[in-house]
């Protein structure tokens, strides 16, 4: 009986290894995407992209200014700034696993900073 139980567990273990047990879904496809009104990308993916051109991020200053910058693989550069309430908190929430979305208007004012932190952007 004991031998049968051990055999069963061993079988299950082999089956799990063979099927490639996964701890959750991941997404590694996105790098910096820039348009006239929006920039988005996963911070970690941009950092480890195949090129050394791209970057993406925001700074939060003690005078209340939030400034965001991004450059895509083609060399397109976008930046914006704001002192509006709530942006500093949003920008402070940016981390390596953030899917960052920044929107801006023609005057160079940031209209949205969205730091989406989720397990799917973890390695």
């Amino acid at each position, binding site marked *: 009986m004991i031998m049968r139980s051990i055999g069963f567990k061993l079988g299950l273990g082999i089956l799990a290894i063979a099927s490639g047990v996964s701890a959750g879904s991941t997404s590694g496809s996105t790098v910096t995407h820039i348009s*006239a009104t929006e920039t988005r990308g996963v911070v970690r993916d941009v950092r480890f992209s195949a090129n050394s051109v791209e970057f993406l991020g925001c*700074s939060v*200053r003690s*005078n*209340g*200014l939030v*400034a965001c*910058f991004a450059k895509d693989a083609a*060399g*397109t*550069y*976008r*930046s*914006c*700034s*704001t*002192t509006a309430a709530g942006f500093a908190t949003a920008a402070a929430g940016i981390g390596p696993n953030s899917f960052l979305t920044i929107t*801006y208007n*023609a*005057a*160079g*004012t940031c209209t949205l900073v969205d730091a989406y932190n989720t397990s799917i952007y973890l390695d």
Partner: protein
Amino acid sequence: MSARVVRGLAVGSFLLATGVAVGWWGRASGSPERSEKASLRSATAEDARRPAEAVNRITVQAVDTSGIQESVRKAVAEELARAREEAAVEAEAKAVESDPTPEVLAKLDSGHEYITTAIRTGRWETSDATHLRSLGADLSGDQYQELIRPLVIAINKGEISPNVEGMPF
């Protein structure tokens, strides 16, 4: 049968009849069953009166509500006065902020000129970013944002391509 016996029987019958009659009257007026029925009837009448009493109560509450309304009116007036006071303080603070010192004005002018020159040349290097940040050290967030706005617009239009390590401003 003697006349005395006949008279005795007549009196006995009268007394018996009177006793029965008195007994029946006593039961009819003082029986517990009747009392219960009477109290039930009384309760039903009380229930019927209740809506009228409820109406009376509502009327009394309406008088109380007017007192509450007065309190609410007073509280709202106080809150509005406080809000007006706070707005005045804020406006004063903004007026002070929007009235820059000569030093700040000089830095704003210098920064503006620096950025205009950079846009004209189309170049923005790490040393330019460092210089601009040092100029903006004493500026408020709003002042610095207004200073860098022409640079940000020029970058987004592709008129200037920053060649900077890290932040461009």
